[in-house]
């Protein structure tokens, strides 16, 4: 290893790739390491949903700003990025959930995000495969989907064009002040960015990130079966419990006509094996919302690990106990959406520029309450 980069990024998932892109644009010489290949970890396991979320003000700020950054980049992205502005359709099962949808609508409207409240009939028209008898829903038209490995590859290619180096198949074994130790030797840089996702605590002990397993299923092509990313509003409830395994109805049409069917969440460490009980419950829940799914051929099932934090916000910023170390990790199930905001914010922090949104809520060393 000869030339000394300005910044070393550990992890070439979509978050690391976004950091590489913005840092390179900021004039830094960047080297990215990944133990596997770019976009092959959590990035490849997820749905690729680009969604504005209202869990907290900070989550809204990061997701909506990231979406604007994506809008700026989309015209330059290749077809392989599979971007489609399909919108999100939040489904309310009953009046209580429809009230929650109304609250969500007010929240979004106050912050300039267009939404559309649907009654039962309109919901059926928007997604005819949904079972009758649902209360209604909320459509968020600006949300979309991408194919995350391709977006990751594109971000890295842009960074490479600006002088970055991407070293795949090289594991970073340790992080030292202003240096990393790899299987191929020691490399120094002014900034080290730990963007290793769920694996980040291995290099930076003390990071409050745990792997949170999820299952997904993809079907054979069924063009026109579904038009939106369709999610039950109960997802918010199930996504919030950190304890027991939970499932929620979540269906996404891909540009190929295939459907991604999810979702599940469980804390079982790094056990990637199929949990057939969870998978079965997840599929039964999906079929209960969209009975027609039951007849579609399922092609394959896989699991992945979301990098989860106790307060469901990512860690973006300096890690003060190690000189020159920065963190960009812990994005849970929103890393595809928030990668660009993360990369941009981290670059501003490193270069001493004021970020577009307040970085305080994402500070890597913030004090977090335990999971509820």
């Amino acid at each position, binding site marked *: 290893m000869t030339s000394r980069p300005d910044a070393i990024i550990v992890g070439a998932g979509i978050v690391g790739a976004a950091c590489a892109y913005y840092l390179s644009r900021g004039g830094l010489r960047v080297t990215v390491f990944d133990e596997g290949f770019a976009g092959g970890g959590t990035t490849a396991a997820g749905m690729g949903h680009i969604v504005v979320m209202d869990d907290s003000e900070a989550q809204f700020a990061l997701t909506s700003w990231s979406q604007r950054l994506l809008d700026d980049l989309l015209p330059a992205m290749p077809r392989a990025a599979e971007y489609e502005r399909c919108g999100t359709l939040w489904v309310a099962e009953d009046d209580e959930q429809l009230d929650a949808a109304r609250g969500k609508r007010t929240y979004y409207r106050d912050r300039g995000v267009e939404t559309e409240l649907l009654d039962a009939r309109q919901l059926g028209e928007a997604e005819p495969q949904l079972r009758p008898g649902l209360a209604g829903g909320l459509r968020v038209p600006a949300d979309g989907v991408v194919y995350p490995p391709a977006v990751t590859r594109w971000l890295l290619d842009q960074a490479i064009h600006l002088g970055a180096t991407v070293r795949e198949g090289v594991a970073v074994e340790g992080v030292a002040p202003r240096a990393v130790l790899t299987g191929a030797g020691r490399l120094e840089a002014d900034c080290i960015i730990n963007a290793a996702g769920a694996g980040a605590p291995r290099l930076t002990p003390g990071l409050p990130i745990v792997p949170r397993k999820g299952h997904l299923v993809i079907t054979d092509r069924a063009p026109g079966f579904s038009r939106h990313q369709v999610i039950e509003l109960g997802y918010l409830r199930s996504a919030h419990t950190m304890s027991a395994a939970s499932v929620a109805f979540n269906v996404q049409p891909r540009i190929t006509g295939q459907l991604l069917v999810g979702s599940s969440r469980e804390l079982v460490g790094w056990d990637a094996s199929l949990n057939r009980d969870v998978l079965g419950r997840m599929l039964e829940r999906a079929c209960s919302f969209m009975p027609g799914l039951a007849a*579609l051929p*399922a*092609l394959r099932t896989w699991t992945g690990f979301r990098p989860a934090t106790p307060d469901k916000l990512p860690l973006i910023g300096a890690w003060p106990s190690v000189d020159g170390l920065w963190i960009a990790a812990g994005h849970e199930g929103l890393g595809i959406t928030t990668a660009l905001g993360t990369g941009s914010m981290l670059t501003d922090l490193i270069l001493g520029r004021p970020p577009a949104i307040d970085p305080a809520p994402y500070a890597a060393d913030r004090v977090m309450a335990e999971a509820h």
Partner: protein
Amino acid sequence: MAVIGGGPAGIAAAAVAAGLGRSVVLLDASPRPGGQIWRHRDRGTLPVGARDWLGRLEASDATVLSGANVVDVAPGFRLGADVQGRAVTVAAGAVVLATGAQELFLPFPGWTLPGVVGVGGAQALLKAGMDVRGKRVAIAGTGPLLLPVAAALARAGADLRMVAEQAPPREVRRFAASLWRTPARLVQAALYRSAFATVRYRWGTWVKRVSERDGALLVTWTTGRSTWAEPADLLCTAAGLVPCTELARLLGCELSGEAVVVDHEQQTSVPGLYAAGEPTGNTGMEAALIEGAIAGFAAAGQGAGARALWPSRARHRDFSRRASEAFRLRPELRARAEPDTIVCRCEDVTLASIAPGWSVREAKLATRAGMGSCQGRVCGPALRHLLGTSADTVRVPVVPTPLGVLAGLTAQRDDSRGAS
């Protein structure tokens, strides 16, 4: 005990174990037992050995589940099957994998054109009633399977123009000469050959490319030294067989090349999991019967019965080894694909779009190769041969399964549904 696959190996395993008093369920994807080799045939036309084994299976207490696609096996073993659209789960203490083999398709320019089918595929189409009368048919492939397929096409009235064996003449001759050790095979080969006696049967000849001309196929043949083109209506071609090992890989069995590694008792590296027949790399019906019987004895705890069959298995393995050496694929077959040749026909992925050095998963994520409805069953072995990549992870379900059936297979209930 569960036996997966109802060909000769599975039939033998199930009949032997059930005969020893074991509770056996045989799960077979076909409408009735027999496998690729004995399927679609009236019992009366089957060879005596086949009739004997099918009779033994029927006379036994083994439960046969036909139309059963085993799409999941959880460690332990809990099998999930799609039985004609019904979710059926089976808990078994031991499992015999008798999943057979499939054709190996090595891409060449034009291999995805209509009118280009597999060699075994042509046989299956014939058995299903395909009309080939008067059609100009050419066969290109390798190994002993060429002869019965050629004979069947000739008997069905095809205008058979060419039977091409890719192996070099000296290898085929040496193999044929070695058949004196098994005279029955020699007689069988001669009988098949007599059915298409007037047709060219060329050794050391293979297809270089196929194109369309005047509503027919134009097949470019080559021997390496000379190259020429001939028209055909149907081209039956494959590069031999490759074991079906999806379930074995799902369960983490050790593999050697494409074959499942087994011990003397046909047990895989996973305790309680056995493999017999084609999956172990031993080709042919005779080897499958012996291996299936050994697996049936061993899984039933009757080591002595298994040991008695070892010498016979050794003879068949010897034949299988000689066959695989003689009909080893020539390297030219791997070099036929051009940059714009499709390697994954489900997703229209060309060879050029796959970068050298990519792992199969990397290629999949970057190009969608193997992401289509065949889930890499066709392009997976091809890419392994073409690019030397290792096998991709097997995902549940191992064959496409209606989502509702998969849900029923995996959701655990108090009223657990068992087949036996």
